[in-house]
């Protein structure tokens, strides 16, 4: 499989090509200008704001889905329980304000409902509020596999386990993931390069460097911070280089597009490879960490 052949395009000013329009549009509410303006502009029969409890926001909008559970399975199963989703339903999701494990679980859920093609939108920020020192998440409550995204074959021999971390700004998350799988020797880090903005790469490096003693030696790989397909390809290349893997762990700790790439790789491969997606959970995410909107990407995920 070559994941880089999938469709992607970018748009200025939120003027997204919606084709003939969507049946369903979902967007995570994070109180950022970049998500609100897209929500208004998108052509869809039904539009739903998803209010994740992690942001602690009160949403004064119509069509808001709210649920108290922090757990991705409980939250999203409840979301889709009264929405008619058929294999032919045309769905678009703005992932900009999504919570990462929820995004991955959501995609797997849609896949189980027979969806083979979904459009995802992501708006790039101009900068983060406090550069590399921006706080994105609160205290980690737990490190575990994302629900429904574990492996079908858990190998008791862990000698050649591989962990691939899409490593972003949140060095604390990276440190916690590395600690939780501290016995895995083979760790790869996919850095977002080219980054969303020219200075974000070095900010990323500073954060990683800072956590280096908790992380261990870093073998870096690169995929653009805005490209799910090249990210999936980077994962695929790493795994091809390590044919003797015992278990594979993927961890999405960077941008949402890279998270999408991890979901994509998982869905194409989990039947034949022992892949797990692991995540350091926090019940708190800070809204309004991003400023400005550079451009909006549209990615079409094609699923097996």
């Amino acid at each position: 499989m070559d994941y880089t052949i999938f469709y992607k395009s970018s748009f200025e000013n939120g003027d997204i090509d919606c084709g003939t329009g969507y049946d369903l549009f979902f967007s995570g509410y994070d109180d950022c200008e970049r998500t609100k303006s897209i929500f208004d502009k998108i052509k869809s029969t039904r539009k739903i704001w998803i209010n994740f409890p992690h942001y602690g926001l009160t949403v004064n909008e119509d069509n808001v889905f709210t649920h108290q559970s922090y757990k991705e399975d409980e939250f999203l199963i409840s979301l889709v329980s009264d929405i008619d989703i058929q294999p032919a339903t045309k769905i678009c999701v703005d992932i900009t304000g999504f919570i990462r494990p929820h995004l991955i679980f959501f995609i797997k859920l849609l896949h189980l409902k027979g969806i083979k093609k979904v459009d995802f939108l992501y708006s790039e920020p101009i900068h983060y509020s406090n550069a590399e020192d921006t706080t994105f998440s609160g205290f980690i409550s737990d490190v575990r596999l994302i629900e429904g995204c574990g492996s079908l074959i858990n190998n008791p021999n862990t000698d050649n386990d591989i962990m691939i971390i899409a490593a972003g700004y949140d060095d604390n998350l990276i440190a916690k993931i590395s600690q939780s799988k501290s016995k895995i020797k083979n760790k790869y880090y996919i850095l977002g390069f080219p980054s969303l903005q020219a200075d974000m790469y070095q900010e990323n490096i500073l954060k990683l460097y800072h956590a280096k003693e908790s992380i261990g030696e870093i073998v870096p790989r690169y995929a653009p911070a805005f490209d799910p397909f090249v990210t999936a390809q980077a994962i695929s290349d790493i795994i091809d280089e390590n044919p003797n893997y015992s278990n594979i762990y993927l961890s999405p700790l960077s941008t949402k597009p890279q998270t999408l790439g991890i979901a994509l790789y998982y869905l194409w491969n989990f039947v034949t490879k022992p892949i797990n997606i692991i995540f350091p959970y926090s019940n708190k995410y800070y809204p309004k960490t991003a400023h400005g909107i550079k451009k909006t990407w549209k990615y079409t995920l094609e699923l097996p």
Partner: protein
Amino acid sequence: MINELDNPFSVTKATEFSDIEIKEYWVNFNPKEDVSIDTILNPNEYMPKYIIGGKGCGKTHILRYFSFPLQKIKYSNDISLVLSNDKYIGLYSILNGLNSSRFDGKGIDESQWSSIFEYYFELYICDKLLHAIKEIFTALQLNAVTKIQFVKSVLAIFRNYKALDDIMSLDGLIEFLFDLRNKIDSEILNAAFTRKLNYEEVKILFSPSDLIFGIPNIIASIVPSFSGVKFIYILDEYEKLFEWQKKFINTLVWDKKTPVTFWIGARRYGYTTRETKSGESMKNGSEFQEVNLDEIIRSNDDIYRKFAHKLYTSRLDKYYLSKNIRTDLEILSKRFCDKFEKNNDDKIISEIIAKNKNKEFKHIKELRKKLETAIREKQALELKSNEQVDEVINQIKFNTDNNPLELKYKTFLFYQLWYRAYRGSQSEKKLSNMIDILNFINEEYSKLKNGEKGSFDDIREKRKKDFIAQLTKENNVKNTEHSGVDRFVELSQGNPRTFILILKKVIEYSKIRGERPLEDGSTISLDSQYMAVYDTAKWFYEDAEVFDIKGKHMYASLKYLTEYLMLERFCDKPVDTTISCFYIKEEDQSEKAINIIELMKVHSVLIEDPNGRLGKNSGIKERLFQLNKVLAPLWNLPIAERGTIYLKKDIAESIFNSEYSNDFESFYNKRKGQLNAPDFIKSKGLNEEITLF
């Protein structure tokens, strides 16, 4: 990219070692002449062990050292020698590999999870066992009949054994267990969406623990070379399990059957229950033996120092040997230790002087400001005008050659006497006006200058370190007090990884600053040492594996505690010197506060003195703690176990019990008032119990 520089100390974790390196980098630890890790763990006995230790204490290194792959290396792959000499097989497994948190939630209740976990666990652990057996069978060249006999005996454990007739080999058996596990894996995965487990797929096919104890028993009975050979299941990362999963492991340990025993490796914070499934607790000493590595190492400073010495010399030796340089170990070690630039207070002082070339020192400016405020508040004795303040300052500066440290001594005594003028007790030296105070100070000071005994001797002897810390903080200068290998051993407080990490960082910083630290005749600057110590402290602070609300509370408590301790050091009139320890009366404190203190203890943020402290009047034992020395540099706090502060009930609650954290600020401000001019004049209750030990 972020790969390591060429550095003898680059590896700080056993995980990064290969099996061969585990053997090569093994440094035995001898708490007593005839006692070593070998004799403590003693694989020759059946007594199960719980090996407990904080991060970086060497636990994984030790456990892997006793595992089958290392046994093979030790006997150059001669497995019959492993069996006949070692008389045990160490089967090392990482419990986290189970991804045990999968066995939870998904709309399924705990009892279902518990039975499916126990079943899965056994299949999982036996995979490693069967692979080892397969390897041993091949090495021993066992005949086909014995092999089949073994396979068939194992299959007989299964309820549906009649349906398993076609399994004729060890590989077939391994594959059969694989299929059973696979079904469970897939049921767990689907349950996230279906919210149920399909029982047909995960039906339990043998009685609990029949495989885990049964298989070793079968081998022992049919393969003569296994007679008297123990199977030690070495299960690392016990801390990663849920409480109910730990109880299950405890139950296995409790129920163990010959020829099987267990070694359980756990981080201290995760060693939370001794209970078995029946609710009974296992007894340390009779039913299992607890091996607390941190305590063993910390029990004797001298032995730890020797151990640390062996550790770094062995690393250096390997490093230079890899470059074809062979040196006598003692010379190597001495040469290395001599590279470290020694801390020099004069150097810090000159830096501060240079920074203030054209202006008044901050502490003098502060004194001026405080006197001016005091005049307004009518607390400055006879002083009335700014001109008089200038005169006071001139008197303080007199004879000091504008040396900031000397000025500190004098201002300290000034603050002390000023305070006493208003609030001193009868027994203390009390002067009632500024002129007398300043005259007294300058008389005493000239005694110091003339080498005669006087008030300043004591001040200089006991408080110099604190004043240097104050000066560095006020002037934004690094306090480079921690230098040299011996100091790093002390800072690491019994933790080999912390020690190696400081050295690693020292080499890193020194290299990047162009000091060529590993070459002959070079010097490792104080700056490099400071940065290394600081970075290690920061790492230790951030690396605590503590989660959720508990973690949040722990960090909040640490913040309050260090703020309180800083207050004692960075003030005008410190009561005691170099405070880094505190004690509490346990019976005064809430369970919540004690729990957080315990949490800080298991994460080695606080180190408890096992001897405690006897209450002066009560005779009741009080609990005595010190902030882990490695953390102290983050806040410029002292590391000497000298000054101790008593945290009264309410203050301790405001620090350690989140319910009362709102009270902290007022306690803090009250204490601040007591310790600083001119507020100390009107503050009450300075005479808190503060003692030296």
